[in-house]
């Protein structure tokens, strides 16, 4: 066992990478839930995003087009959720599960000819001087641009929810859809947009795993990240900055357990590998005492009867 092989600077830099898929998916789901919709299909949208992005990046040679494709892929899958929950008024829990089961199968089908291929590499930020600084350089100035996009998205969603009229309307719809409808707001339309946004974010998060974090395609490679993202939204009390904090905490746990595996710690690999899931459960338990921040209409079906 050699813990000294673990470099703290690289650890922080890599935890940011590990956290980004979670963050992207969680920010998307946070917006969806703020609009009063519970979409449990995050895992399915992520994995479909992962393969869509991967396939398009491989075919076009452009990781950027890949990420755009991933966002579109995630959004298209979320459209199925829209049809089920907003048009056919189906139960949101069941529909989300259906989305995940369907997405897992669909991604496996789409990805058959992509197993074992290496995707085109994504450029990293390289600012002269800044990126070469010790400690600060690798942590702050040497990542791929999607990672910064994730942080920018967090800031944008925070601003939108807190200060913009659009954010106010979104929160209103999530708090009390009947009242929002009575004021003349288009509840269904607003929710559809939120769900599509959530799908696109989940798709981006999935593609981040297949194009940058791993990078390759294997079936079921999201391995529960989508579910952890759902837990993260609860952890964050539906607040964007807390989602960022939570994503980095979980990213840290993942990276540390991987480093411990590599360093050959005397704990069996399986027990290290289960630690992120166990910690997710523990965090959920600690935070479940306070439910007061949940949007009041979360998961309820809206139908504008006379």
């Amino acid at each position, binding site marked *: 066992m050699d813990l000294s092989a673990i470099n703290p600077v690289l650890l922080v830099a890599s935890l940011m990478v590990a956290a980004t898929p979670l963050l992207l998916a969680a920010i998307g789901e946070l917006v969806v839930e703020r609009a009063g919709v519970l979409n449990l299909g995050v895992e399915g949208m992520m994995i479909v995003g992962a393969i869509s992005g991967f396939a398009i990046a491989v075919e076009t040679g452009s990781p950027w087009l890949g990420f755009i494709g991933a966002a579109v892929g995630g959004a298209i899958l979320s459209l199925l959720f829209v049809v089920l929950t907003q048009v056919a008024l189906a139960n949101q829990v069941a529909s989300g599960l259906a989305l995940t089961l369907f997405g897992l199968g669909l991604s496996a089908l789409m990805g058959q000819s992509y197993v074992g291929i290496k995707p085109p590499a994504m450029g990293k930020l390289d600012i002269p001087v800044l990126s070469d600084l010790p400690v600060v350089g690798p942590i702050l100035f040497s990542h791929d641009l999607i990672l910064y996009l994730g942080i920018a998205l967090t800031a944008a969603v925070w601003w939108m929810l807190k200060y913009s*009229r659009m954010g*106010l*309307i979104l*929160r*209103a719809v999530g*708090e*009390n859809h*009947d*009242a*929002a409808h*009575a*004021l*003349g*707001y288009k509840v269904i339309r607003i929710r559809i947009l939120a769900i599509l946004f959530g799908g696109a974010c989940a798709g981006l998060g999935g593609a981040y795993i297949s194009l940058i974090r791993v990078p390759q395609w294997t079936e079921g490679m999201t391995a529960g990240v989508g579910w952890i993202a759902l837990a993260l939204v609860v952890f964050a009390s539906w607040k964007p900055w807390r989602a960022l904090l939570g994503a980095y905490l979980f990213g840290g746990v993942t990276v540390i357990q991987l480093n411990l595996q590599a360093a050959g710690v005397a704990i069996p690999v399986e027990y290290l590998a289960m630690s992120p899931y166990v910690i997710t459960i523990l965090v959920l338990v600690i935070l479940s005492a306070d439910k*007061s921040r949940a*949007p*009041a209409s979360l998961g309820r079906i809206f139908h504008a009867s*006379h």
Partner: protein
Amino acid sequence: MSTPLLSIKGLTKAYPGVVANDNVSFDIGEGEVHALLGENGAGKSTLVKMIYGLVKPDSGTMSLRGAPYAPPEPRAARADGIAMVFQHFSLFDALNVAENIALGMENPPAMGDLAARIREVSETYGLPLDPFRTVGDLSAGERQRVEIIRCLLQDPKLLIMDEPTSVLTPQEVEILFQTLQKLRSEGTSILYISHKLEEIRTLCDHATILRLGKNVGECTPRETSARDMAEMMVGTALKTPQRAGRAFGEIALDITGLSVPSPSEFGTSLKNLHLTVRKGEVLGIGGVAGNGQDELLAVLSGEILTAADAVKKDGQPVGRMGPTARRRLGLLTAPEERLGHAAAPNMSLTENALLTGSVREGLESNGFLKWAETRDFAERIIKAFDVRTPGPENAARSLSGGNLQKFVIGREVLQNPDVLVVNQPTWGVDAAAAAAIRQALLDLAARGTAVICISQDLDELMEISDTFAALNEGRLSTPRTTTGLTVDEIGLMMGGAHGMEVAHV
């Protein structure tokens, strides 16, 4: 007479199985307070929803100051100067006052400016309100102020008010009326919807009366007696419940020093409640909605548990008992919310009869259900309470509000309770069903049951109770005998004006 502000001609709107409005016509003049009078289900709400753009009429036209008016959505109605204060406030509990008001405006100013304007308007009209308080923490009266100020900020030409006084104490009603009169003097027209006749006689210049969706008459309220208006509204002379003279027995239910926090975030905690009800007595508990009524019912039904001694039935502590154990002892309850609380909407009436009847009617043995007996019980309720339904296999949600309420009350009454607690027993129920329900409660009391009736309808409470108390912010006033009780005294028991100021007219 000059061009009316709003002219309605032949408005008709039908829903499957019911014509909500049938060829309704009337005019509202400039600066006029116009009453729309009718029973629950007469079609008042549908009519104003059409004026406000929430519902599109099947046929008929409206014109605003002579120009055709057909708002496709509330936004358009607001742009034309129509504002509405809803009966059930369309407010967002988790947002603050200013945010709530901004949501109701087309182009709200920045939050800081908006807050300043809210303060300004609220002072002008004597409706004090802090723009940054969370709406969920406000009292019913304060919540109504949010709605009114939201409307006033848009300088409306027509203000629609749907049953505005049902959530106010008599003193608060008086203040509201002064605000409305000030608005009228500034030239704003008001469409005032109510079924309370005395109010309309005090406030309104003109009244249109609706019955079963039809315009059945118009009058000048100041010159028409309440009795005449009532007859136009109801169509027939009503049978008022008969109170038999009765003597009270021993104490059946005893609440001592009861304090419980509310289980919901924006609910009201009960604070140091004391009350006793004797056999054969009807205790009426008044008060504005949201002052602890739901919590009090839950404490009595066993949905909220308390210290064992805080609630005693016939001297036996029941505070730690769940609903089933209490039913076994003869303490029965009927909550306010019919669909979803007192009854399961998608389940049949038979299943809903089982919901509370299983213990006392012997509808189960060792956990196994006796469906035949349960069906019999449901049929007995339907028969005894004249519930209009094709049969007990129909879902609860297929019944009209009044019929379901008769079923819910009947289900408890037929189980011969020792103590029966009802919350809002006639809310949203037509007059005939309401009279039947009140009579059933009085009959029950005459047979020796102790009845607690929680209601916001003061007329109803005065009609059936022997003793009256009021809930105000989770506290219960000392119960008093109803004989000789004045409206002013009742108002003070209900919390007076809840800290409101009188408008500087």
